[in-house]
């Protein structure tokens, strides 16, 4: 049998899609088939498969990790971290990034066609979990011939996937990097998401989710994004960037235009988001996040999720992140200690709140580069 050099293998490269027959058994009990996965790969898979790495994206992220977004033309969401000579060095590592199950950038989600009806799933799409996303990724790795990952890396929801990977497939994960994340959604996390979901559902265009033949619930989705966006920033950051400054006017209008710069900024964030994201996907993925409680999946004790693991862990939090504060990372670290798992943890200082994990941080670069290259 001839082996195809990976550079010629159609499974590898940018903007890949594959339809896997499945069925995928979901945590909610449903069977999903087929399972389409949109993904990208960077770098070259080593002959022994030992340099494969999975990077997991956050709530509204996608597979365009280090390549231009097809709709917005913006650089990949982690271009500063991933690429030749970068901390996640694509000259050394074979890096895979998949659009998560339930999303809207090519992987199966509520906007996909239900093969049994020929119409979009909409709200008949089964509710999914973080672990379902991970199992779908595992199906893709089987397809790519990647048995074992030298690392799973993720921030925010990506970090939850990384934790879920280590707990669900401990033998397939050598190292696990969890940045600005948590092992379970708190009441406050759920509360913010519920505000967003209710905003979507209150939009008359939502129509019970069946909007694919008409106008989408853009106004509701924009409000959802605005509320969520506040949780990604720190109060100090908002004050520094906007303060009480007025938007292109000398005085208050005594009306309800976006008088303040912060209002204008949020409105822009909300609107821009609706151009690239499906409202139903937003409902499903926020639900998956709210359902996430890794301890619950393991008899109520987080340490059980990592008992006997050989995976090495590295956790990073940011001091101004109030969405997933340092205490959440610390409780994961304590569980790892109790399980005897090798773990590193550092809280980095940043003015940027939760978003810090996506922004310039030489210390984060150093930690990730060091952790990934150690012992290789």
């Amino acid at each position: 049998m001839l082996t195809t050099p990976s550079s010629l293998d159609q499974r590898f490269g940018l903007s890949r899609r594959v339809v896997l027959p499945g069925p995928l058994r979901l945590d909610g009990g449903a069977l999903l088939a087929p399972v389409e996965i949109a993904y990208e790969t960077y770098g070259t898979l080593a002959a022994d498969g030992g340099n494969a790495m999975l990077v997991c994206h956050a709530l509204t992220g996608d597979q365009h990790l280090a390549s231009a977004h097809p709709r917005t033309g913006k650089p990949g969401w982690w271009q500063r971290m991933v690429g030749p000579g970068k901390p996640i060095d694509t000259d050394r590592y074979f890096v895979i990034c998949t659009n998560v199950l339930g999303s809207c950038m090519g992987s199966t989600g509520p906007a996909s066609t239900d093969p049994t009806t020929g119409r979009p799933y909409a709200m008949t799409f089964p509710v999914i979990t973080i672990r379902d996303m991970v199992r779908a990724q595992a199906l893709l790795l089987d397809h790519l011939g990647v048995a074992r990952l030298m690392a799973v890396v993720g921030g925010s929801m990506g970090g939850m996937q990384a934790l879920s990977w280590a707990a669900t497939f401990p033998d397939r994960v050598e190292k696990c990097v969890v940045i600005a994340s948590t092992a379970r959604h708190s009441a406050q996390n759920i509360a913010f998401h519920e505000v967003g979901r209710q905003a979507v559902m209150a939009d008359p265009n939502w129509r019970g989710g069946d909007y694919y033949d008409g106008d989408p619930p853009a106004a509701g989705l924009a409000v959802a994004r605005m509320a969520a966006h506040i949780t990604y920033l720190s109060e100090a950051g908002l004050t520094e960037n906007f303060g009480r400054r007025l938007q292109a006017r000398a005085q208050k209008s005594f009306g309800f235009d976006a008088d303040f710069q912060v209002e204008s900024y949020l409105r822009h964030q909300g609107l821009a988001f609706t151009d690239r994201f499906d409202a139903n996907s937003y409902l499903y993925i926020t639900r998956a996040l709210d359902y996430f409680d890794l301890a619950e999946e393991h008899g109520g004790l987080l340490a059980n999720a990592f008992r006997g693991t050989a995976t090495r862990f590295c956790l990073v939090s940011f001091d101004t992140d109030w969405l997933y504060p340092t205490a959440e990372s610390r409780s994961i670290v304590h569980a790892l200690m109790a399980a005897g798992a090798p773990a590193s943890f550092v809280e980095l200082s940043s003015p940027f709140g939760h978003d810090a994990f996506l922004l310039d941080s030489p210390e984060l670069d150093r930690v990730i580069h060091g952790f990934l290259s150690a012992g290789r």
Partner: protein
Amino acid sequence: MSLRPDLAIIAAHLPAGARALDIGCGDGELMAALRDDRGADVRGLELDPGNVAVAVGRGLSVIQGDADTDLAGYPDQSFDYAILSQTLQTARAPDRVLDELLRIGRYAFVSFPNFAHWRVRLSLLWGGRMPVTRLLPERWYDTPNIHHLTIDDFRAHLAERGVIVEGAWFLSGDKQTGGAAANFLAEHAIFLLRREQSKVDRG
């Protein structure tokens, strides 16, 4: 690269392949030596995030945390050795840190600068000022050393607590000196400790 003399003594007396926790591990110098030269399975705890980043970059497992507050998460007797080098005198509650050390490790290495060294005594006696020496280089207001102790203080504390001394080493000018008159002659002490057997059994 050669280790600081007190760390070299710890490294020389740690059995090959032991599981060790280095509390206040700095940038991981001792940890790396224990891993590379002794084949130890070693973990670290360190307060300074910059130091943690360097240590993680060396491939070491280091958790950012405070010896005063973050030792409770380690299970009883989860390490063969708990190591506390040059950190005891910086703790807010050194007695409790010592208790935690002996809970987490079967054995504990503790090293500290001796405040009764003759140069420190002279400095205070003749100068009338808080001593600033090679091992205690900070001035009174910026020193992290908030609980100065002497070798005799430490011995008395161990006796009160019923802690067993398995070994003790003393340094003066980076050279080992004898145990006789150590409280006067040693700049620096390293103790190897364990709990009373009954307490170990009770966990």
